[in-house]
């Protein structure tokens, strides 16, 4: 129901760190299902020793979490859009709890993130969900908190003392 150009109108992320390809299902304020196909041509597969053990070609869990987080951001932003409101500022991954990873994923696999909105209070969204490849559960996200923060209020970088 949302293709890449639609997603790029909603998320500020751009390739190579735009990690959602397609949104399949969306219910405002409730849930969203999004996919990302893993490819060996992504930058994370460059500069590797050759050959490696099969397990060392597994897609980085950090990027899997980011991909889930972007699906969560889409759920929040699409919900706001559906209600005719806006979310002010940049969405930031603030905290997470009880996330478990039970499988490795490889190029050719399609991640399917099922994100649910637990509660949405002001500039804070608590989300939960799972990541699947086919009928194999790869990750369970107990609780993820995203917050909307005005960029102008982000503490500015200070140079080394």
């Amino acid at each position, binding site marked *: 129901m949302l293709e890449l150009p639609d997603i790029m109108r909603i998320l500020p992320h751009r390739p190579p760190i735009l990690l959602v390809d397609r949104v399949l299902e969306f219910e405002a304020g409730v849930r969203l299902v999004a996919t990302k196909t893993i490819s060996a041509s992504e930058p994370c*597969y460059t500069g590797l020793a050759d050959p490696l053990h099969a397990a060392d070609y597994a897609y980085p869990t950090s990027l899997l979490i980011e991909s889930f987080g972007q699906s969560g951001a889409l759920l929040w932003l699409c919900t706001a859009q559906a209600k005719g409101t806006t979310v002010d500022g940049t969405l930031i991954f603030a905290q997470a709890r009880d996330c478990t990873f039970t499988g490795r994923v490889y190029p050719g696999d399609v991640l399917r993130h099922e994100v649910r909105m637990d509660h949405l209070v002001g500039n804070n969204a608590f989300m939960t969900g799972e990541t699947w490849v086919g009928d194999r559960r790869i990750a369970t996200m107990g609780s993820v908190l995203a917050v909307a923060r005005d960029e102008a209020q982000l503490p500015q970088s200070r140079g080394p003392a």
Partner: protein
Amino acid sequence: MQRQFCAPLTAVDSVNTESESEVSASKVIKADDPYLSGHYPHFTIYPGIFIIESVGQAVRAHVTAHRGATYGADLVEVSRVRFTAPLLPGNTLELDARITPGEQDPDLLSVKAEARREDGARCAAMTLTFRLEDRNA
């Protein structure tokens, strides 16, 4: 140098693996680090998730030093993580982690890590679990 595992970027510049129960590492954030051009085009910020990647690479270096180069360390649980201050290009990430092998299963490593910026601001705190695997076994 060629990487021995798939990763979005080299997320540590230097790692101190001398201690058996602790590891520390640092990384200078650069605007041209891989993936950062898209995060975001108008405003570059080191993604919080990449701090988890930095901790993972520090733990892997520690495992290589203490268990051998054939061991991999897979992240299996994020019990909790909190991101509290941003890292921007020019900042230095400094992280310290305590590594405790599981009592029941010594191949499960519990890792409590804290990441600070060069000005002392705490960027993140996290408790993670890694599973060791001898890739040659």
